[in-house]
Structures are given as structure tokens and as C-alpha cells.
């Protein structure tokens, strides 16, 4: 059973680098990349890099979006956004106009969003250019790829819970001073689920790249 599985692409066509795969060198691409294994060197993507909880990326990264739930050591240049989730750990500098660090994440490095003085305040409605979150491949693909599912399995629970309390929690300190010491707790887990659908339509045009598992 497990031997027949080749976790090559997720349901939306993104390339997956499996847990036991270790790549050293330069990686370029025009589609989403999920790293469950290890990548060292350089990563240049026109789309989204997702570093899963088991993933380790030790590289200079240049992408459109990055979602980090694993480990990244190196600098990230993202033309759109970088998000470090609760499990994410990163050492390096981030250059991106939109950077999100969720409570629980750990990060050491410089953050450069460009000219923040002239940056317009973001409308709350601004849609997230979010790719498929790490949690996503686990659910839909579960039956076909048991081994891959096992690892990010813990993830799905945390993202959905956070949406509702976000705004109220933020304002809480004004009226309820006793709560002030921890005003941001609930607000910090940025929900990844809703925009996931956005990634779907593109699946048709994607080329599939196969990374074989050992």
C-alpha cells in the first residue's frame, strides 16, 4: 500500500517534496511548492512556497508568497506575502510588503516591508493571495496518501477556530481592562482556510513535476 504511493502533486497540482527527500542546489518553478522534506540552496518560484511542519528550507528564497510552518534558515524575498504560522520557525531576513507572524511562531531577523510610511492602510476586505495552506493537502488527499497525512495531521484544527474572535478580541482592552494582558491571543491565528479555494481554478494548466519518494 504505502509503497505504491508517489506523493507527487497535491490535489491542486502543487509540487510536493516528500518528507524523505533532500534537495541541494537550485530550485526554480512556476507553480506552488510544498516542502515536507529538506531543501538547501536556492529557491525561486513564481508562486507560493509552503514549508510544511516537517519541512526544512535552508536557502535564499525568492517567491510570490511563502507560508512557513516548518523551518526556514535564510532570507526570503516575497513579492506578495510571507506568513509564519504557529509552528513556523525562521532565522533570516524577510523582504515583503505583507508579513504575518502568528502567535507561537518564532522568528529572528530583519523585516522589511518597503516604504511603510507611504503604505496605504490595508482594507480589511483585501483578499489574501493565499495559496493552499499546509493543512489543506492533508485532508483531501488523505485516503490516497496515508503516510503524508500522518504528519501534518495536527494542523487542521487550529486555523478554523480563530476567525470569529479576531475583531472582538482586538478591541477588548478598551472595555475590559482586566483582560488587557492578553488581548491578542485569539486574534493571532490567521485563518488560512477561506482563500484556499482560490488556488483551485489554476490546477488545469499546471505541469506536474514528480518527485519520487525513497
Amino acid at each position, binding site marked *: 500500500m504505502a509503497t505504491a504511493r508517489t506523493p507527487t502533486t497535491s490535489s491542486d497540482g502543487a509540487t510536493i517534496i516528500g518528507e524523505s527527500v533532500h534537495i541541494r542546489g537550485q530550485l526554480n518553478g512556476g507553480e506552488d511548492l510544498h516542502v515536507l522534506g529538506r531543501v538547501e540552496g536556492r529557491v525561486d518560484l513564481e508562486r507560493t512556497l509552503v514549508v510544511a511542519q516537517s519541512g526544512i528550507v535552508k536557502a535564499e528564497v525568492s517567491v510570490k508568497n511563502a507560508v512557513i510552518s516548518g523551518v526556514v534558515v535564510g532570507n526570503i524575498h516575497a513579492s506578495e506575502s510571507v506568513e509564519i504560522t504557529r509552528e513556523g520557525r525562521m532565522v533570516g531576513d524577510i523582504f515583503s510588503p505583507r508579513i504575518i507572524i502568528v502567535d507561537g511562531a518564532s522568528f529572528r531577523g530583519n523585516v522589511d516591508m518597503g516604504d511603510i510610511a507611504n503604505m496605504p492602510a490595508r482594507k480589511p476586505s483585501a483578499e489574501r493571495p493565499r495559496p493552499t495552506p499546509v493543512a489543506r493537502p492533508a485532508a483531501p488527499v488523505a485516503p490516497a496518501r496515508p503516510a503524508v497525512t500522518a504528519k501534518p495531521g495536527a494542523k487542521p484544527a487550529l486555523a478554523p477556530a480563530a476567525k470569529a474572535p479576531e475583531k472582538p478580541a482586538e478591541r477588548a482592552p478598551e472595555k475590559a481592562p482586566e483582560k488587557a*494582558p492578553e488581548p491578542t491571543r485569539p486574534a493571532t491565528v490567521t485563518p488560512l482556510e477561506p482563500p484556499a479555494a482560490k488556488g483551485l481554478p489554476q490546477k488545469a494548466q499546471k505541469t506536474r513535476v514528480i518527485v519520487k519518494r525513497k
Partner: protein
Amino acid sequence: MADAPCVIGRGITIKGNLSGAEQLVIEGAVEGHISLKNHLTIKETGRITADITTHSLMVHGQVSGNIEANDLVSLSAEASVVADIKAPRVVLEDGARFKGRIEMDVQLPPGV
């Protein structure tokens, strides 16, 4: 209640050192140093040009200076911060504008 936080209103500007042990909400302007052993909230109207040492911090307004906290530093979506932040927990909400360095403890797996 004794628990009600001290508020520096939006019409107030403080230049100098500000220290204390109770919760503080700043809606006005502060220039200098802030040293607090409790939770500090900087409202949307708050403008801080100061080095801040505090237990925890929530920023909705503008801060420029260095920030050091024992617990959580959180920059809300309205925040605009130019600072170096040193704290065990730092949260950057979507929309927060930030420039500077963030120092948290990062535990890397062996061999990385």
C-alpha cells in the same frame, strides 16, 4: 476599580521618562523612555518615539524606538512601527506595518 488602566489621553504629550507598574493605555504622544512592569496598550491615536521596556505590549498606533518585552508584543493591523523588537512572543497581524528587527528565541532542529 483598581484594575482600571491609567490612560494618557490623546491631548497629552509627554517628553521624558515614563515608568510604572500598572496597566497603561496611551492615546497621546510620548517621547523619551517608557518602562512598565505591566501591559501597555498604544491606541490608534498614540504616537510613541521612545524606547519601551514592558511586560507586554499591544500596538495599534505608531511607534518608533526599541521595544523589549518579557512576554508578548503584538502589532495590530493598524499599527505602524519602526523598531527593533526583542520578546519571546511577537505577533504581526495582517496589515501591520513594520520595519526593523525581531528577536525571538528560535529553536532549530539539530543540523540546520
